[in-house]
């Protein structure tokens, strides 16, 4: 890994890590609260560990000058492995909290094991740990291939991967010990947020630099989506996390916003995190891996354009539907509702474009679980965007809001769309990157597919039932004109569905573990067979498509 860096890059890596270690140490020494000290130590030790890694390769001979001609895929390989580790960890925590909701005494009387702390570990671990690493890894692959350009340097992608995972580590470890700024999906405190800004800007610039070096006259759709993801997430993250720390030596900070403005900023962020992190980024993934695996052209370039601009424009207005019937002024709610309704059309254009692309390749969908992962993901994308627009209508929201229906909706998206497209992309990418004809076991891919699909369906159906029962019980009046049920009665009705949900989640988790094993065995057999590493070189002439079959490159 370090052997691939040029001598100057090794020096720079060393300097950056020393700087991080010094900052971490300073936090640990001057920290005025214990939690801040713990995080200082984590930063210090992460940097120190990586310094040893750099030193171990520091005196290796400089890399072959030829390397600069090959695509740089090591960061992608690392990103995929890290994403799968996060997946298993965070899905395990997710299933744990699912059982915790059915059997609340399972907290062992320990603060760290309470629902309030474990839940953000699950959400952050999945969205940022699993989803984020998968997006970064695939985006590195896709932008190089579709631009026919190599990474401009070897260090930046590693800075992004190291820095991003340090952020995730700070976030998740913070929740366990009680650090949070209580903003959903933006729980990490100010210093972690600042760190993420630095990393994210590095990522953005890196992406632009690759695009600037492109040999293709046009920029492919997948890159539009990845760019939208990186750019908008930066804006959302910076604005929503504007806060004033109580001191530079404390973990705690106070938001720059208050009251309903705070709520609106938070849900503008929260909803667009769904839009640009969990949708735009993964549409980028879909737009590359689905046509590649299917060996079919994208159904309609024009639909790509309309879909992209529709999604990016409409989503920005939709956040207020999270605050229907609250202190938020009615006019903001009406705008949020109507833009959410209009949003359905471009969302379905994107889903439809993906499914129509499969025309002529449906036999492959039948035979190839990897492609089926992507197909089902597109279907779930369509379903959950319909559901989302539907739930944004105020009278519907009156029933669904604060109930498990919302949880079901989120997981139709997170399991059915985000996770399935990611698994599909990873199963396509792993054999390409490790130079194998196929995954170690296509049968296990099949097993994973069915586990994931049945897990998702069990999860979503139980939450639909639970949510609608809950919503109806909360609004049922008796003959004397008062509420018929107490809150705890609705809880009793939830119990069987909570158990079913936890079982669905368990299926999904087992699927991910099967996937890890399969990926690991594929990588291992590649290692055992490989002599000298093979590289893939950008085709600098006019790419001749006839020579490139689906699923194979170079």
């Amino acid at each position: 890994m370090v052997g691939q860096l040029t001598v100057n890059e090794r020096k720079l890596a060393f300097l950056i890590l020393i700087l991080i270690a010094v900052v971490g140490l300073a936090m640990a020494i001057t920290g005025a609260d214990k939690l801040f000290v713990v995080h200082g130590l984590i930063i210090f030790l992460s940097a120190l560990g990586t310094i040893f890694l750099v030193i171990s390769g520091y005196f290796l001979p400089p890399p072959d000058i030829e390397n600069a001609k090959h695509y740089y895929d090591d960061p992608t390989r690392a990103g995929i492995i890290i994403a799968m580790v996060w997946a298993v960890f965070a899905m395990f925590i997710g299933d744990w909290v699912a059982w915790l909701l059915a059997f609340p005494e399972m907290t062992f009387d320990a603060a760290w094991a309470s629902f309030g702390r474990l839940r953000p570990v699950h959400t952050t671990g999945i969205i940022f740990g699993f989803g984020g690493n998968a997006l970064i890894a695939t985006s590195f692959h896709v932008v190089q291939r579709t631009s026919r350009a190599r990474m401009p340097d070897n260090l930046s992608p590693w800075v992004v991967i190291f820095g991003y995972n340090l952020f995730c580590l700070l976030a998740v470890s913070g929740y366990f010990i009680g650090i949070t700024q209580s903003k959903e999906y933006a729980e990490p405190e100010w210093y972690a947020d600042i760190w993420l800004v630095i990393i994210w800007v590095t990522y953005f610039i890196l992406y632009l630099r690759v695009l600037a070096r492109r040999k293709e006259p046009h920029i492919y759709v997948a890159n539009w989506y990845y760019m939208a993801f990186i750019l908008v997430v930066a804006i959302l993250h910076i604005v929503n996390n504007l806060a004033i720390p109580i001191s530079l030596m404390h973990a705690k900070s106070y938001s720059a916003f208050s009251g309903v403005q705070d709520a609106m900023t938070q849900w503008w962020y929260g909803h667009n995190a769904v839009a640009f992190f969990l949708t735009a980024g993964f549409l980028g993934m879909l737009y590359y891996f689905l046509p590649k695996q299917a060996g079919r052209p994208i159904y309609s370039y024009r639909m790509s354009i309309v879909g992209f601009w529709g999604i990016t424009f409409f989503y920005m207005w939709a956040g207020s539907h999270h605050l229907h019937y609250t202190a938020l002024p009615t006019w903001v709610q009406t705008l949020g509702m109507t833009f959410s309704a209009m949003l359905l059309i471009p969302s379905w254009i994107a889903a439809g474009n993906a499914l129509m692309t499969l025309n002529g390749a449906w036999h492959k969908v039948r035979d190839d679980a990897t492609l089926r992962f992507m197909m089902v993901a597109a279907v779930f994308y369509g379903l959950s965007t319909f559901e989302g627009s539907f739930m944004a209508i105020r009278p519907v929201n009156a029933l669904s809001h604060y109930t498990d229906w919302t949880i079901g909706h989120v997981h139709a998206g997170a399991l059915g769309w985000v996770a399935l497209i990611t698994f599909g992309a990873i199963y396509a990418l792993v054999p390409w990157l490790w130079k194998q004809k196929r995954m170690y076991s296509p049968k296990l891919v099949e097993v994973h597919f069915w586990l994931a699909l049945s897990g998702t369906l069990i999860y979503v159906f139980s939450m639909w039932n639970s949510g609608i029962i809950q919503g109806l019980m909360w609004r049922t009046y008796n003959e004397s004109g008062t509420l018929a049920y107490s809150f705890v009665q609705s809880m009793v009705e939830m119990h069987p569905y909570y158990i079913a949900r936890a079982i669905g989640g368990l299926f999904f988790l087992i699927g991910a573990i099967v996937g890890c094993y399969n990926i690991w065995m594929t990588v291992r057999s590649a290692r055992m067979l490989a002599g000298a590493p093979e590289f893939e070189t950008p085709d600098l002439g006019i790419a001749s498509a006839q020579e490139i079959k689906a699923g194979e490159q170079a």
Partner: protein
Amino acid sequence: MGIEERDRYTGHMTTGHDWNGIKELNTKVPKAVWIFLFISFVFSVICWILWPAWPLGETYTRGILGTDQQKRVDQVVERAIEDRAIWTGRIMDMDYGEILSDQSLMQIARENGGRLFLDNCAACHGKKAEGGPGFPALKDTAWLWGGTPEIISESIRVGINSGHEDSRASEMLAFGRDQLLPRDEILTVIDYVQSLSPVSADQEPKQDRNAAGKALFLENCASCHGENAKGDVETGAPDLTDDFWIYGGTRAAIFATVWNGRKGHMPAWQGRLSDVDRKILTLFLLDLSGMDVDGRSNN
């Protein structure tokens, strides 16, 4: 720039772009898409016309329905209060005895009281009002502060050690911790106290110490619990001769109580629950423990 070609399967032309083997068809956007986009836009415009929607600097478009959610909530709440006034008025006007003998009103009190109890009281007093460690049962006839409707209703209104200005106040001294009594005397008085209660003796009380225990009891405890240990509803001191123990009747539990003292807490519900809701809860409790207006059990 690549060359446009015809896709054999769909018959559409490609755009001529090629990205690492990925091509695109130049298929037109289906008409249905434009139609649905138009419909969703029309839907939005209608919503914008009907309801408040667009900001205009200091103000916003009000919509021709001239309503907003706050007004609507106020209206609905007002109407609901009017609808309920038929029976809430009667419950507020009639006295407890009349209501208890009016089956239709008691049906309403049971229905609403059950829900109010589960939402507000069950967290401490238990789902079936059976009480729990630290919190008295409410379905029996033993009442710390008295069990007439007026007293129960007042307890709900002001709470116990609640900070409400009329709050009931009650505290048992920490005889051990504050060194009011030495350890062996505490054990002696516990022997005596256990001998009074039909269920509390988890080990045979030492009868020979009863005289000494009784003397200690009269000296230290009787001022609140009474000479006969029957408790006192004026100070909220519990009856020690019955079979119910708020903090547990085992020797260890009683020892903890005498050693550390007790100061229970119940929130005041005035301001959280309306007058009629508190009256309904009172009726619900009377009904639950089968008591009449004088606090006597009918069971």
